């Protein structure tokens, strides 16, 4: 489960990063939630967070912290996608994996994000349980 999540987030971050950040910025704009500096900051930061936290998961470092960080990010994605569906925004591609590697419609992206959100919770809880057992 940890490796699966690591691969998902590393791929998601890496594929966004090899493209110009303007493409991901356009995706953020298409959700019509943030503009200006916050949107630019998100476009620059989110892919790096995904890639580095995913790499930490893969290496088995800072697992609880990385899982919690990705869970917060994933919760944010779920909220953004859900509001876009409710507002019927014309977002063709969720922009989850950068350029056309895996192209999801909004409902597909929502299901996928809920799936990873649950996996992140399970991974986090499994780490908590292990610590409790040690005590």
């Amino acid at each position, binding site marked *: 489960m940890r490796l699966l999540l690591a691969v998902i987030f590393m791929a998601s971050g890496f594929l966004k990063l090899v493209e110009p950040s303007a493409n991901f910025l356009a995706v953020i704009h298409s959700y019509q939630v943030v*503009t200006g500096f916050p949107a630019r900051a998100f476009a620059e930061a989110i892919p790096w967070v995904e890639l580095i936290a995913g790499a930490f998961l893969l290496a088995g470092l800072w697992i609880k912290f990385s899982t919690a960080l990705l869970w917060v990010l994933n919760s944010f994605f779920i909220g953004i996608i859900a509001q876009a569906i409710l507002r019927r925004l014309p977002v063709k591609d969720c922009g989850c994996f950068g350029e056309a590697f895996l192209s999801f419609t909004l409902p597909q992206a929502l299901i996928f994000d809920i799936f990873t959100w649950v996996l992140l919770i399970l991974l986090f809880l499994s780490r908590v349980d292990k610590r409790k057992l040690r005590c």
Partner: protein
Amino acid sequence: VGPFLNPHKLKLSVLIILLCVLSVTLARAFRFEPARSFVFSSGNPKAPIHIVEYLDFQCKSCRLTHQYLEETFKKNPSKIYWQVRYFPLRGHLHSLKSAVYAECASRHGKFFEFQRLLLEEQDRWSALPKDAIDSTFEEYAQKMGISTDHLRTCVNDPRVKEIVVLEKQSARGFGVKETPTYFVNGKMAVGLQAITEEIEKLLEKTGEKK
């Protein structure tokens, strides 16, 4: 020593971050080709704001963003140098053909007029079936005094289509994937929101009208 101060763990974390940065830097270096010279341009080449526009004549966002740029250009003609390039999208039925006709119009010095007409009449010709599109574009070209015979020869020339396709491929090489995409002084901006923010920021710097 607490888990946060474990030197081995910290070293490994720094190494992982460096590896991430290195892999992205290498991937970007191989992914993007350098930009080449541009063909269709208007304005002052020495202007402080250089805009390269990648558009699809059948895309509605392109029309809206182009209108915004035209207005801004009219207000600040000495401050903007504007270049146009083709990026016909696959999902639009007449995108490629409209770009081919625009390329042929350019050979008669009518690129900008043809482009303007294409964007103004976009709703009309976008709704047409495939077999009715040539006659409509020929009608537009006739309005500009372009001979239909010359136009047909040009449109049927496979090299013309190749120019458009190569331009799109080249744009993909430096990260363009949708329209409208702009390079404003080399910085990429996609869509109306991004281009508006970028231009307004630069116009503020140069002290010109928005």
